[in-house]
């Protein structure tokens, strides 16, 4: 049952997907909701008591290089072999957990109150209508999200 296996380097993935934040968990979730919406996501599930947000957004997946490569393959092996990605849906799972919690989530003994983890994956379709899923492991995605979240929290503090 390989599909059920945890991803390779699961602990490293958890580390770059997680930040420890100060503040009320509900407030942090509300701000995270705002930031995801700022980034163009549609919220598909939200639960304060469970500390969960899920969201998704559509993006064009066409890349010029991939199309050129597909054309070369088509010339060499026939048009039926030409494949390139056309569109994608990016899906987000965001969870929060009190930092005092036990087990895997407790990655820091520092003072912050809430651990927040955000994971990205995408559903990609090609020109043949074939669909595949892949996780997005670029830490830049988390970096971008948490920077915007910090800005949003700072702005909220300023307003108060």
């Amino acid at each position, binding site marked *: 049952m390989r*599909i059920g296996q945890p991803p390779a380097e699961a602990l490293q993935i958890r580390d770059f997907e997680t930040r420890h934040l100060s503040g009320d968990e509900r407030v942090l979730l509300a701000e995270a909701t705002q930031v995801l919406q700022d980034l163009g996501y549609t919220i598909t599930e939200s639960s304060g008591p469970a500390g*969960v947000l899920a969201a998704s957004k559509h993006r064009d997946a066409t890349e010029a290089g991939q199309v050129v490569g597909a054309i070369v393959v088509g010339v060499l092996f026939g048009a039926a072999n030409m494949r390139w990605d056309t569109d*994608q*849906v990016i899906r987000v799972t965001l969870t929060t957990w009190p930092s005092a*919690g*036990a*087990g895997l989530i407790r990655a820091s003994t520092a003072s912050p109150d809430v651990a927040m983890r955000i994971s990205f994956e995408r*559903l990609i379709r090609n020109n043949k209508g074939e669909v595949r*899923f892949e996780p997005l492991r670029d830490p830049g995605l988390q970096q971008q999200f948490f920077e915007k979240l910090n800005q949003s929290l700072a702005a909220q503090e300023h307003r108060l």
Partner: protein
Amino acid sequence: MKIPAASLGLFLLLGACAAGQAERPVIASTMSAVQLRSIQSRTFDTTDRDQVLRGAIATLQHLGYAVIRVSPEAGSVTAVKKGRLRMTVSVYPRGTVQTVVRANALLPMGAGDTQIDDPLFYRNLFFEPLSQTLALAAMAAPEREDEAPMPAVPPDNPIRPAKVAAAQ
């Protein structure tokens, strides 16, 4: 604003995943309800159902699942891995000192979604990581059948009628 047909199709596919691919028939395990409950359930020495539910959510995310539905009131969460493997976890109290966790996984095979009944799958790929997350030992399922609800599955499938018939 016009939505491109291709994009709409992809969103519909994602929606189908989110809805649990309910249009696909569920191919239920041939194991007895008692066997299945034993494989799919564990008991934890805690009364904090919310903490256990959060632990289950954190474990699913750690294992690479994407959360698609969560209901703290019902104590359940549904998540999907790689758009195929779908896991529903329900958490409920047992007596005054314990909490039971039941997991049910479905995997698309052929025309339907097959219920996974491999004990090692549940033990190694969910309950052991959950036990680590909660820092609590996972113990055997409750002995009485009526203490464990049936796994959450889409309506109109071969599992529900048997259980409903037994209950009636």
